[in-house]
């Protein structure tokens, strides 16, 4: 399910639907001459508002629909393609519904939340368009499991080699094996690096301690540490990219929920003070 296929899916069928919706709404908006300034309380305002609210709920429903790949109502690709294009159309329809009236109130809060949801969705779309390629580039044909096994093998070699060396070197290297972690917490995963990586520290130590000439054992040890460092860098980048494919959802989904709450508040309050 590559990104391109979602956007050009079925020869832009859903782009055409979205453009049609935007075109009809815009023409009505321009032709409409309401009493006072255009706003959400005219017949067109109520119509555009109802369409917008329906779109919001339907777009949010995608979160439930996507969990079953084979649903009863259309293919998931249809849903995703329509989700993207109708989501963008919503921005325009809802803006017309507002009549460009903004203020420090809960109605503009709903508008801002909707924009936040759309923006995070756009970021997600961008991530989905870039990260899969970066992921396979970074992996270079190796799976994460293979890279992990390679690190484990290296660890074994490194430990054995270090045992033949002086106690301090052995200790630094042993500690580096014991303490090197991959993706400890959310921020580490997100950054894709570990500036305090014990393996890098051990590599520096072995490099420095070696002075001008390195013994064969030290050279072997250093070579393995450098290789391990490279694998760690790739694995951390791998996690970062995989997280990138999900992390925007940590904004997109909670903001969607906040938006739905604000939508309920918006609808209830405008009729509370009708």
């Amino acid at each position, binding site marked *: 399910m590559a990104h391109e296929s979602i956007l050009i899916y079925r020869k832009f069928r859903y782009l055409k639907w979205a453009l049609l919706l935007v075109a009809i709404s815009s023409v009505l908006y321009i032709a409409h001459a309401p009493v006072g300034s255009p706003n959400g309380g005219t017949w067109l305002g109520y119509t555009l508002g109802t369409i917008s609210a329906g779109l919001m709920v339907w777009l949010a429903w995608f979160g439930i629909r996507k969990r079953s790949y084979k649903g009863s109502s259309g293919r998931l690709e249809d849903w995703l393609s329509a989700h993207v294009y109708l989501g963008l159309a919503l921005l325009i329809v809802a803006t017309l519904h507002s009549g460009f009236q903004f203020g420090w109130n809960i109605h503009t809060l709903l508008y801002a939340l909707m924009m936040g949801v759309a923006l995070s969705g756009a970021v997600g779309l961008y991530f989905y368009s870039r990260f899969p390629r970066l992921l396979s580039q970074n992996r270079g044909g190796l799976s994460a499991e293979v890279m992990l096994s390679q690190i484990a093998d290296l660890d074994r070699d490194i430990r054995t080699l270090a045992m033949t060396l002086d106690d301090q070197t052995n200790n630094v290297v042993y500690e580096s094996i014991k303490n090197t972690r991959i993706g400890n917490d*959310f921020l580490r995963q997100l950054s894709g690096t570990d500036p305090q990586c014990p393996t890098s520290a051990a590599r520096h130590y072995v490099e420095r301690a070696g002075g001008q000439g390195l013994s064969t054992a030290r050279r072997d040890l250093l070579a393995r540490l450098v290789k391990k460092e490279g694998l760690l860098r790739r694995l951390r980048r791998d996690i970062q990219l995989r997280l990138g494919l999900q992390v925007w959802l940590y904004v997109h989904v909670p903001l969607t929920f906040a938006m739905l709450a604000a939508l*309920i508040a918006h609808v209830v309050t405008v009729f509370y003070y009708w």
Partner: protein
Amino acid sequence: MKVLVKYITRKTSGGTAVREENFDSEVVAFGRATTCDVELPDSRVLLQHAQIVRRSESLYIEALAGETVSVNGHLVKTRRIHEGDELRIGPYVIILETPETQAEITLSVEMTAPQDDELASLLARSKLRTDEVGISKRQLSWMMFVAVLAAILIIPMVATWFSGSGRIDISAMDRSALTHAPTTLWNTGELSSSHRFFGNSCEVCHVQPFVPVQDGTCTSCHPKISHHADPHMFAFASFGDTACQSCHKEHQGKESIARDDQAFCADCHQDLSSHAAETTLLNVTDFALDHPGFRPSVAKNVAAHVMDRKLAMSDTPTPTENSGLIFNHEDHVRADGVEHPEKGNIQLECSNCHVSDDGGVSMLPISFESHCHDCHALRFDTQFPDREMVHGDPLAVFSQISDVYEAVAMRGGYQEPEAPAILRRRPNTTLTAPEKEAAQNWALSKTQEVMNGRFGRGICEECHKVVDDSSSPVWRVEPVYIATQWFPKATFTHKKHNSVDCGTCHAAKTSISSADVLMPTIETCRSCHGGEYATDLVPSTCVDCHRFHQIGLELMQQNSSSAPSLEAAAPEDGQ
């Protein structure tokens, strides 16, 4: 010192494998190094970790390089050891056993805590899965949902219920009745200037939740608002069923909520007969492009109060007035002035008679006493220069004059040469009865002569139509109607136009007949005013001259009886 070392390996099946090693050494060295007597190949062990030495037949364990060794659980630098003692170096347990054959020292060495599997421990340390970072999207989402809903909807709503202010009566314009609603953030837009007075008191207008603002709420503060058209004749234009809200849109910002766009009026007035076939109103869409000529409301029959507004100022013939008055504007404002009885020749200005009211909207009424009497005193007899006829009532004039002449007939001394001698006698001489009767007859005929002569009827006829009236002892003056509102359906403010000379609009200087209607034609106004979309004229919309709610028509309040009544809600004392 002969040493036997037994390396013990436990098998997964439960048994043990023992590899024995014999050597002879003065010192038993333990360490990671291959050169050690007992090699302990583990990262947790130093290259040279410890050694067992014999001093005076006793065995001692000595830790090296500042390290420590555990002897029976105690970390020590050095200690004497005996058979059965348990030493620990890194993950190895070393037991000093009872010496076996030939050996002086027998040690068993067992690895008790082997290294973890590298892969397993790496995986155990790492968090490779991106959903393991400890934040649940679902939890976060529901938290956001509940937080937003509570903050902007539920808490303000509950707070409103508990404050329970209900309807707020501010018809007395008393600000102390206002509240500060906890729902300020619900406000969809700023209030108009005039309603901004309410501040945050939503309940002033929004009386009942989930019910649109009712007309009765509007008319409770605006009780004098009348209909646009007679609701009994033109029901469609009375807007009786349409809420005030449908035209007056609140929360749209600071500008007025009264509509001023001409399209709003033209919507019906561009083709009014299709809405009301019986209407006499003409169609209109734009002041400059499509507006009927000004049709003044002129008196046709003053006595019967018949007004007519068939003709426009631009029509030929022009509309004529039948006010019952004879007046020549030209004579009064001529350039060479007029003769004032006391001041001599004076120049009259329009403003000598036509004075606008304090609001500057319309002109104050013209009255004989204020505007004519200065020059036109109603003296009837040169013998009585101080006596003037009262204005406006011929019968009163008749009795006034007859009183004057009866008195002089009784008193005598009347200096008029043509009068009979009995009147010219010395004053206050006693009359005989026949003389008295003659004098009275003279008084009566003199009164009638004056009434019907130059100084009676003649003076009146200078300005009024005077007709004989058989039912009355005297003639009668036809009633007069002086227009105060030539265009009763329009408003005009003189004050706004006071930079313009009166003659620009009113052709008084050339008017010699009171039948002339001295109102301007629409073209006069159009020389400055255009329609709403004018670019080189003053843009003027319908409501610049016309009102939507027509004064004098039935009040809109009267057919909104179903709306909540303010009187019912307001406390009786009203204080």
